């Protein structure tokens, strides 16, 4: 029973994180939120008796890919600095 409650909470948390990932102004935060979704998912996998998947998701889905995201964000920010000053990476200005 308590598993169910925890799982439900996890699910709600994941959806909230997804919302943040989609809508948070700061891209860094959004990327971290995406990683968090993966992390919570790996917890969920543990509950679902899938430790292998949980490990993979934690290491790859939430770990490595987040780092790649960071690298790319960083690179893009550098690009932007070279050119004009804009925070386009975070939010596309309305045209």
């Amino acid at each position, binding site marked *: 029973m308590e*598993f*169910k409650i925890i*799982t*439900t909470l*996890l*699910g709600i948390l*994941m*959806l909230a994180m*997804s*919302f943040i*990932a*989609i809508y948070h102004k700061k*891209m860094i935060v*959004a*990327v971290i939120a*995406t990683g968090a*979704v*993966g992390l919570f*998912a790996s917890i*969920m*996998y543990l*509950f*679902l*008796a*899938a*430790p*292998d*998947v949980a490990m*993979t*998701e934690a290491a*790859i*889905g939430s770990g*490595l*890919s987040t780092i*790649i*995201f960071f690298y*790319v*964000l960083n*690179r*893009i920010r550098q*690009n*932007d600095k070279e*050119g*004009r000053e804009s925070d*386009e*990476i975070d*939010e*596309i200005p309305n045209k």
Partner: protein
Amino acid sequence: MEYITITTGFLIILAGLWAIMTRKNLIRIIIGFSLFDTGIHIVMVSMAFVKGGVAPILDKKELLTDTAHKIVDPVPQALVLTAIVIGLGVTALMLAYAMRLHQEKKSLDIESFKDLKW
């Protein structure tokens, strides 16, 4: 329990799709894609779950008898493993593309990459 997780999975799939279809920022679209993938993985693992089953690792003696009724389905889990790695590959490649696209036009707006059309 698996109902909860599968619901979560489907909702995350939809959230991912929503991000892909509405957000203009390339990175945000890739995030959406990542969510979409994660959602599918959750759905897959949920399907593998068997009520009362344990992880398919036979590290206890009693699991060796009548194994089939004690463990969860290992096959979808194996599939998910593969899918996660593939997802990483695709995401990494997409990010590399996004980076290069930004180099080209100094923009991350998907609307600005319409040189090819019609």
